[in-house]
């Protein structure tokens, strides 16, 4: 019996040592992946290159917070971003704060809200989104990285409706939206890879009650704020490839029944469809069609009735 006890203690000691080594090695890799010079090497060794992109959306919120006398705000998804990016550099009355689809309507709303609070001279707000971006729900692939963490890091979750906050906390967990965790997730591609994949494999998406549930909620908020401040809100669709036409048709009825549909009835009706040959991913313009010259031409075609947007070119 005593021998067995001794053997057990001996084994346990080695087991403990091994567990400590394992923890140090695993923790060490994650810790070293936070900063250079090890970051790049560890990212390569662990094949985490796809998780290295920088946080560019924080800059948008910072720009929305910084005061200027501009009177036009353009926000929207990555297609809007492709069309209007940098056009505000030579324009002294407009700010282009376009982002991407994963920032979702919630992110657009936060940028809008901050902008309106800091820009009393604002007269026109253009929200330019693909209908599939407008109706987007929180997921584990992109929304955590591009929406939830960005908003949490910039203390903007409070700007959202309580029901949306609950959804975000329920899906991603409180801990994953706190300061140190966000810092580590943003800085360590290895940790980001682990966490995003873990969530995608183990958690479930909370479905929307209707296709445009989130869109309705935040469009209504934006509409009310605009009305109270005397700002005109424009909801416009990005140009859409023929390849997406069927998907748009599938949600047309849902849109017509939504609150947004009742206030902005022409949003889907006015969609400009272009040939699939102009895009590789059916969303963004590619090849020669992504040149500035062609994009300006496209703005001219799609937004012929919007003088302000035409003037941006």
């Amino acid at each position, binding site marked *: 019996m005593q021998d067995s006890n001794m053997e057990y203690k001996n*084994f346990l000691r080695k087991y403990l040592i091994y567990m400590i080594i394992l923890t140090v090695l*695993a923790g060490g890799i994650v810790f070293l992946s936070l900063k250079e010079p090890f970051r790049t090497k560890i990212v390569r060794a662990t094949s985490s290159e796809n998780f290295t992109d920088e946080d560019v959306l924080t800059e948008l919120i910072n720009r929305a917070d910084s005061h200027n006398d501009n009177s036009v705000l353009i926000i929207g998804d990555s297609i809007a971003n492709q069309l209007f990016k940098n056009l505000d550099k030579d324009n002294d009355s407009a700010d282009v704060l376009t982002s991407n689809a994963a920032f979702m309507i919630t992110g657009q709303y936060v940028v809008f809200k901050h902008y309106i609070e800091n820009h009393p001279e604002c007269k026109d707000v253009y929200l330019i989104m693909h209908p599939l971006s407008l109706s987007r729900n929180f997921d584990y692939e992109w929304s955590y990285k591009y929406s939830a963490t960005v908003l949490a890091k910039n203390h903007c979750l409070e700007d959202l409706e309580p029901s949306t906050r609950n959804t975000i906390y329920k899906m991603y967990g409180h801990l994953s939206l706190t300061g140190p965790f966000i810092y580590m997730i943003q800085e360590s591609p290895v940790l980001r*890879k682990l966490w995003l994949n873990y969530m995608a494999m183990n958690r479930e998406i909370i479905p929307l009650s209707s296709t445009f549930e989130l869109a309705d909620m935040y469009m209504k908020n934006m509409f009310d704020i605009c009305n109270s401040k005397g700002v005109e809100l424009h909801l416009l669709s990005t140009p859409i490839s023929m390849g997406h036409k069927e998907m748009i048709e599938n949600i047309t009825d849902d849109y017509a029944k939504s609150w947004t549909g009742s206030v902005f009835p022409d949003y889907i009706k006015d969609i400009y469809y272009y040939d699939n040959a102009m895009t590789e991913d059916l969303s963004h313009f590619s090849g020669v069609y992504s040149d500035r010259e062609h994009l300006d031409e496209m703005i001219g075609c799609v937004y012929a009735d919007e003088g302000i947007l035409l003037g941006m070119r």
Partner: protein
Amino acid sequence: MNLYSVFFVPFIFIVFIVYYIVPIRYRYIWLLISSLVFYLSNGYSFVFGLSACIVLTHFSAGFISTIHEEKRRKTAFCIAIIAQLILFGCFRLASNRGLFVQLGVSFYSLQALSYIIEVYRKKYPAETNILKVALYICFFPTIISGPIERPANLLKQISEGGKFSYSLAHKGVYAILGGVLLKTMIANPINSMVDMAYSGYWQHTGAVMLWATILYGIQLFADFAGYSMLACGTANLLGFEIAQNFKQPYLAENVKEFWDRWHISLSKWLQDYIYIPLGGSRKGRIRKAINVFVVFMVSAVWHGSGFQFIVWGFLHFLYQFIPAKKTKYLGVRVIKSVACFALIDFAWLFFRADSLENALYILKSIFCQFDLKQTTYYGSYLLGKSKGELLFICLCVLIAFAVELIHEKGITVEALSTKIPLVVRWTIYIVLTLLIVVIYLRNYGTGGASFIYAGF
């Protein structure tokens, strides 16, 4: 949680420490709690299938043991078996349609059936303590993917209480390390390659599909043998010795021998509870052939519901008629082993394909659109990996093969390692652990987190 998940590392550490603190006569309770936590961490809905199986097994075995009249005893036994099969059938059918998936139901049902049969045959007395029966059925190292245990082995050890044995625990650690290495270094990296080939089979050349099928044979072994090693090693840590499930299967010289080496616990189960009761080889050649056919059809249905599994089972039935003569010449043995692998891998094609139609399409492309030149020119054989990664995988497969050869000679890696100085040994442990962590991180999210056999 499964035996390969990250959470299993702290889980087994806590289970291990508490297990040996608890007095020996109560250890089975701690193990039962741990097993339930482990199993139900995968989904609370799994409690239905498991509890139904436990209750049915315990009471039917208990009832059978109290009847002395042979006819009544047989009737009770038949009812118990039919009830178990109905339960199993319902859960399997529902699982196949994705309605009410019950993880590990194929494994623990066979284990439960084995207990009822052994009690009926009076080879093992009915256990009066339902908690011990429950632990026998849901013992966490084996519940998800086996090995399929027998009451004479596992239930007996549960009743006696697991005692710590240094040599057994040491053996267990090596088995766990071996299992993790097989899964991390071979099964998981190959998984994404095979998936890529089979999910887009219509766009690959025959050469790529043949290559993917060969890889699948390797992946299946590394995945399932790796799991079995993890299961055995974990049980060893807790003082249990459970059935060996693999014995260098790809070194078999013929398909009959292959089944003595591959998924041994299932082969033995089918042999003891189906083949022999049907008459085995005792009732003439035709009857033997029918019995073998029944066994392989049961095995096929147990593995899956599609027609491709039936074809897989039928192929193995046909393979049984190939003369199995052992040879002492190394060259001939090598040729026979390679030929045996080719036959088995051919059958794996049906096992892996999503449907019989897909399998036939793939076969056609292998025979009619091989196109080796295009495959090598465009590097499509890499199947999403870089050349360096593929070389590393090949190196790992070669090392695993060398280890299999060593095991075939009756030498264990554990025994070899004791000859290495302590410092060198621990350095190897650390390097291997670092390698496991890095490769684990590399493959995380590529779909290899679960085990292939957990899906059956």
